[in-house]
Each structure stands twice: as C-alpha cells, then as structure tokens.
C-alpha cells in the first residue's frame, strides 16, 4: 500500500510499528469519556524519547501539522482530542524516571511517568517520600496533571499540582529547547522556580498550546509514618463546608474531601441514585492525617474531635468520625479510598462509559451558595448531585466539582450533559469560580469573562512561543484566525 501523507512525513520520526494510521486506532483516539465532540487525528505517533519528540516537532512545524500531546487521555475535558486533525503524540512510552533526589526531595520525570509508576518506585527504593496524588486512575500522567494545574491529596498543604513543578524542559515549535526554574542556570537538581523570572507559568494551564514538555522536575514530600484516614458523615452541606473551613486552617491535616451522598450509593452499584433519604448524611467528608509519632497524631485527632464537638454544640448535625479501617471491614467497597492512587471504577467502569464534570477552583467562602445552585441545576437535568469538594492551600480556596456519569451511546444524554455543563459553567463563573482543564465549549464561556488585556497578552505569548500554531490548536481562543 502507498503510504499516505502523514506516513510519509513522519516515517523517519519513529519506527514503523509506532506510527499508526489504522481506522480503529484513529477512532479510539478521536474521543474520550466526555461529551466533547469527537475529532479524528490523521496519525498517532507513539513517542518514546526526547529525540523522537524533537523530530516530530520539527516535521510538524515544517509542514504545519497540529500536534496533540496525550498520555492516558483522562483529563475529562476533551483536551487530547484533535480540534483540527493532525498528529497525536502518545507519550505513554516516554516514561523514564530520570532521577529521584532524596535529599532535595525532587523527582525528574518524563511525560509518560504515571502516579502508579512513581509511587511503586518510591516504595521499591524504600524512600519515605510521596507526591500529591489525584483521584484519577493509577495509569494517569503526573506531568499532565501538573501541567493542567490539577490537584492531589496534598493540595490542602501545598496547593495545586502546578505549584509542585520546580523546572521544565520544553520543546518549542520554533525548534528551540528551553528550561525553566533553577535548571535554566545550572545543572544541579532543579530545586526551585525562584528566584528567576518564573517562565514555568507559560506552560501551566495552557493545555499544551505553548510547547511540548519533555522533562519535568517536581517536588516530592516526606511521607510520614503514622497515618489515619477518617470519614465524618455530615447531614448537610453547610455543616460540611463549615467543617472543611475550620479544619483547613489548623495546618494539621493532609487532605479533607467532601463527597456527596450519591458517591456511597454508586459504590454499592446504584448507577443513578436520584433521591436521598432525607435523614441520611449529605456528605461523606474524609480527613487525612499524618504525623511523625503517635503523640503528634493524637494531638491532631484531638484537634479534629474538638472542632467537631464545637460544631455540634452550635447545632450542627454530624456523626463522630469513623475510621476508614472500620468502614472497610463492614463495607469492603470503601477499600477504594484506602490507598492512592486508586481506580474509582464506579465512575469509570459503568455500562454507558461516560464521565464528565465541571471542575472549578474558587473561594471557600462561596462554596455553600455555588453548591446549592449546582445541585439545583443537576437535579433539573436528572443527574445525581455528585459533588466533590476539597479545600486547598490551607483553605484559601478549594476545588468544587460537579460530576456526571452517563451513557455515551445515548445522544439525548450526551446533549443533556452538554446543556447541564453549560449551565453549571455560567453559574460557577457568576459565583466567582474558575473552571479548570476547560473543554473547548467551556473555554468559549470563560473567555468573555477574561480581562481583555489578559487575553490579548495570552495571544501574543502564543504567537511568540508557537508561531506556526501547531501546538494543540483550538484551545483558549488563541489561534490567530480565531475571532477575539
């Protein structure tokens, strides 16, 4: 068979078996679990090292072929679906852990390194270190999570995962390779972004539109020996958010996460739990503690107990904390929350296969109102009010997510998710929340809210960093042919 244009162009970039143009593969890469419009790539290149990445960028720039980086494709925003065709760079095999510096607590990794992989490696080397771990499945990429400014189970203490980055090595479509952070000056472990002009931000939350990151240095944190995870059942969301706000500012807890009532039922196999028993708790709030000693742990537990007692004496309705180990003995389903990374199969492995969300960061002072409005919107579209909220960075702000599971094969449901998410987005923006990992549709809703000078500067930066407009085009309204 004569090779097609893309096979000819990229034929020298990777060995033949890692350049794929068969229909089944292209179709698999043209969608994700969300309601995002499918978009067919012209070719999928399975990249395994920096030299191949460089060659791919060079060819793509010369022939103006869009490049879409992808690892597990679980970003829940359609971000690795091509908007204008082109080449998907599958980076799953570009996955070496280059260095783990125990003393400076920094790991240097390639794009395909997954949470499961790094956690296993730290365990294998018996290093008492860890990284912030999201609720996404173990096979998802650390780099993608950091570049998308996601959050993990230590974001209450240390902020978004973008903040954990201490240095990047980036290939620009101009053919230039740049370094950010301490790396830009010396070859020592890239210990920090300070005190140079902070260029790392040019690649965080830009959805792969400014450059292809080939190496990332990221902080690791001490993993303390004494750990507990407790669940507090709270009977309404006011109590939940009040508890979160109070606990967050103690600077004592690793993570606090409120999962709304449908979560528990879905873990018991109820796919569409639409109605809550009015007497049952509205939220399961998990609280993670870790300490260097039993004594330190017990001080933290005492603080938690005191705060709960104070809340109760103010009339709040909540149960005493349940130890996760106890819950798991009675309800093994909760084992899913025992160790991270975990696979929340009740979200990902259901017959319809669809999973989407409107995920936002916003001020904790406004959680109650935004949750009220979001629940009302979800109910109108007949989606269970599945909400995940977590305070971040000591309680300055938090994540508030509205999640839908649905059938991807049912056009009506897909349309309902689209409309529901559009309404949720309008609402969160009005309430002062900012959607993250924004799909194309959501970005279109966000841009009119962006300060005009900010968006103009973003576009100018895009022109400088990616003059050929090949890096994941169609995002953030950045392409020059797009209307301002």
């Amino acid at each position, binding site marked *: 068979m004569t090779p097609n244009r893309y096979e000819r162009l990229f034929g020298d970039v990777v060995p033949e078996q890692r350049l794929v143009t068969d229909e089944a593969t292209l179709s698999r890469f043209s969608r994700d679990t969300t309601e995002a419009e499918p978009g067919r790539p012209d070719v999928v290149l399975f990249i395994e090292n920096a030299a191949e990445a460089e060659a791919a960028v060079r060819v793509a720039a010369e022939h103006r072929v869009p490049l879409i980086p992808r690892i597990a494709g679980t970003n829940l925003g359609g971000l690795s679906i091509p908007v204008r065709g082109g080449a998907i760079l599958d980076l799953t095999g570009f996955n070496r852990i280059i260095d783990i510096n125990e003393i400076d607590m920094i790991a240097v990794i390639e794009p395909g390194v997954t949470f499961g992989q790094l956690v296993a490696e730290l365990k294998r080397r018996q290093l008492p270190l860890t990284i912030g771990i999201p609720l996404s499945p173990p096979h998802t990429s650390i780099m993608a999570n950091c570049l998308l400014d996601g959050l993990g189970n230590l974001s209450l203490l240390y902020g978004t995962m973008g903040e954990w980055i201490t240095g990047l090595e980036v290939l620009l479509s101009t053919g230039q390779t740049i370094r950010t952070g301490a790396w830009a000056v010396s070859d020592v472990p890239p210990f920090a972004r300070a005190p140079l002009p902070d260029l790392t931000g040019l690649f965080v939350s830009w959805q792969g539109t400014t450059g292809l990151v080939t190496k990332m240095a990221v902080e690791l944190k001490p993993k303390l020996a004494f750990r507990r995870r407790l669940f507090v059942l709270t009977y309404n969301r006011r109590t939940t958010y009040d508890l979160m706000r109070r606990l967050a500012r103690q600077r004592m807890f690793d993570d606090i996460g409120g999962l709304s009532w449908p979560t528990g039922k879905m873990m018991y196999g109820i796919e569409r739990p639409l109605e809550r*028993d009015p007497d049952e708790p509205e939220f399961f709030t998990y609280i993670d503690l870790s300490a260097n000693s039993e004594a330190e742990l017990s001080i933290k537990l005492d603080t938690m107990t005191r705060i709960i007692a104070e809340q109760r004496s103010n009339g709040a309705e909540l149960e005493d904390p349940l130890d996760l180990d106890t819950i798991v003995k009675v309800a093994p389903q909760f084992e899913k929350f025992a160790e991270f990374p975990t696979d929340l199969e009740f979200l990902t492995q259901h017959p319809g296969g669809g999973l989407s969300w409107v995920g936002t960061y916003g001020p904790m002072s406004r959680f109650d109102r935004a949750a009220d409005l979001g629940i009302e919107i979800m109910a109108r579209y007949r989606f269970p009010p599945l909400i995940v909220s977590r305070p971040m960075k000591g309680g300055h702000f938090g994540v508030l997510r509205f999640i839908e599971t649905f059938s991807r094969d049912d056009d009506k449901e897909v349309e309902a998710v689209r409309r529901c998410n559009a309404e949720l987005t309008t609402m969160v923006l009005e309430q002062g929340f900012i959607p993250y990992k924004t799909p194309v549709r959501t970005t279109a809703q966000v841009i009119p809210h962006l300060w005009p000078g900010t968006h103009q500067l973003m576009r100018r930066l895009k022109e400088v960093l990616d003059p050929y407009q090949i890096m994941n085009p169609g995002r953030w309204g950045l392409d020059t042919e797009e209307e301002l």
Partner: protein
Amino acid sequence: MDPANRLKIVEPERMSILGLMLSSIIRSNLDRETVLKRVARLDGKVGVTAGKMSITMAFDRSSVTLTRGLTSGLRARVNGSLDSLLQVSLGKSLLNVYFSKAVSFSGNPLFLIKILPLIRVPAATEPR
C-alpha cells in the same frame, strides 16, 4: 428458596447508605447454612436507627426485606451512632455497647439476639 430472593430491598435506588451497608452484610451471611436455618425461624420486624438514618428489617421465615425508615409493628428497636452499630457488626458484644450507653434497645431483646448473626460481618474463617 432462590438465593436471589432471600433479601429484598424496597426501592434500592432510594435506600439510605445504612440500608445498603446492612444489606451487603446480610447478603453475605445468607450464603451461610447456619444463618439460613436461623432466618427460617424468624418472623417479625426490627427497626435500626444509626444517627438520623433508620431502616426496618422484616423477616417472614424465608426472607428478609429492608425498607427505608421505621414502619409500624416493630418487635424490637436498636438505636445508636453509626460508629457503635458498626462496632456491633464487627463483633462487639451487645451488652458491652448497651452498658457503655453507646447503643439503646427497646422491645423484645430475645428477638434482637436472634437476628444478630445476620448483621455481623462474617469472619473470613467462619464456615459457610
């Protein structure tokens, strides 16, 4: 009786988390011969309240039916925090939790004792 019909949940999609937790324990117990024999002798209803959640367990000599909330005609009632009820499920003695005031009972205590094996988490080594 068909094992699938030994446990019924009225409107499972509306059942509280307490009911779902208990139902999963009961279901695994109903696989055990000794417990099945016991169920065949049980007739009547028990109300269980944990925190603010309540459910009714109704026995009719062959099956168990779980309903959300408390219904009329209960032979016995158990009331406590979710934590203390989970401790009972994990084997803590009824008397122990009663005297520590973590759980209260009313109605026929014998009937409660009879249903106890049904809501206890079976140890991995227990015979089927």
